[in-house]
């Protein structure tokens, strides 16, 4: 009689425990995934600000004939490609390639502007450059926040026992938004003093 009772209660308790586990895990995974998406939209906001600023920069640099025409054409082209991708909602991993190229082009422009301090409308160029640099910093920080969130989400779906139910419930690993090479060095400017 008692054996029957124990078996009966086990039959009841075990499924309840499993349902409870799935419930809790599902909810926390949804929360984490939403955080990743929110963080991604933060990056997107900064990238869009950069799209808005780039034409001004390119135009001014072209008028001052301070920067290689090739670079300017390339940036214009990359910008429209990036905007297309943004509108289409391409994955962060894909977006990071074009955006990273833009970042390194912007650095090239900066170097050239700094190399010729006597060109006309130099001050205007420097001011624009400062604005772009400010946005580059914000992109770097929002990328860091995004990647941090991706890391905690990916870890959460990979640990046992979550790994057993993450895939069937439709949770896939999120992709990092990679930094382009040398970006970090560019932000830390004053090492000397």
């Amino acid at each position: 009689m008692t054996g029957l009772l124990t078996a009966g209660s086990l039959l009841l308790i075990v499924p309840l425990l499993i349902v409870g586990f799935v419930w809790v895990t599902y909810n926390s995974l949804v929360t984490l995934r939403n955080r990743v998406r929110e963080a991604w939209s933060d990056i997107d906001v900064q990238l869009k600000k950069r799209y808005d600023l780039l034409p001004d920069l390119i135009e001014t640099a072209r008028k001052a004939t301070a920067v290689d025409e090739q670079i300017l054409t390339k940036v214009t082209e990359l910008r429209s490609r990036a905007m297309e991708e943004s509108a289409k909602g391409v994955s962060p991993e894909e977006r990071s390639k074009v955006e990273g190229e833009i970042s390194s082009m912007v650095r090239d422009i900066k170097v050239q502007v700094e190399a010729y301090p006597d060109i006309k409308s130099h001050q205007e160029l420097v001011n624009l450059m400062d604005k772009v640099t400010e946005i580059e910093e914000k992109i770097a920080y929002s990328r860091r926040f995004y990647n941090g969130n991706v890391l905690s989400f990916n870890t959460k779906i990979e640990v046992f026992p979550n790994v057993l139910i993450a895939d069937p419930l439709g949770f896939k690993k999120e992709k990092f938004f990679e930094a382009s090479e040398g970006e970090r060095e560019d932000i830390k400017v004053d090492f000397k003093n």
Partner: protein
Amino acid sequence: MNIYEQISSNKRKTFVIMLGFIIFISSLGYIFGEVWLGQGAGISIMVFALIFSSFAAFFSYFFSDKAVLALAHAKKVNREASPMVYGILENLCIGAGIKKVPDLYLLDDTAINAFATGRDPDHAVVAVTTGAIDRLTKRELEAVLAHELSHIRNYDIRLMTIVVVLVGSVSIMANIMLRSRISGGDKKSVGGWIVLIGFLLALLSPIIAQLIKLAVSRSREYLADASGALLTRDPQGLASALEKIAADTEPLEVANEATAHLYISNPFKKGNKVMFANLFSTHPSVEERIRRLRSM
């Protein structure tokens, strides 16, 4: 301890301190009522003290940040007034996922120091001295602000700020009582009670010290150093800022005993209130913090 444990521990400790304050003041009221007003008056004084201390605790939860800022003579600045500092703060908030950029306050003082206050990330303030802005590099300033943002994110600010006001008001009361006992001309007082109060007052100071230590354990500073460094990806930046602060011999004029533990580094320099600094040591030694940062 990770950041999430730190957050819940801070919220718990805040509650315990507020509750402890109410209980402490109420029982103090009871004892004084019994002693000075005679048998039976203790209860009514206790009720009064209970209402008073609950109100004080409630008030300090919402307004202690204002009190702290007023104590430090801090002035609010906007983006236009200080674009560089504001820009750094904004960047760090993006990196930390803090939606609302904290209000920025300046302390007109040549010493290098900073603190954060408020009750949660949505009601937070970061204050820096003008000395810090002038004498730290952008990289070092970024590291210092990241340290302060970590205090905000960990809810250290809520606990530390409430401690300032509650512990401060206890010590003011203790002072008043101590004086009234010394100059007390109340001849009809019962001898036994006077002795007891004497003991109670003697006990007060170490209790206050203990409260502060409870609230501002050294691990809190290490954790803020570490998570600040994680935010900037640059522990060396904070290490060199701390080195500069350590080498700075200038004391921060506006700091006092009650607010000392809020600052990134002990605002009292050598030769200035050394006794106090050693007794409470609200901050771990700068050397140790630098050593830990250098080894990251």
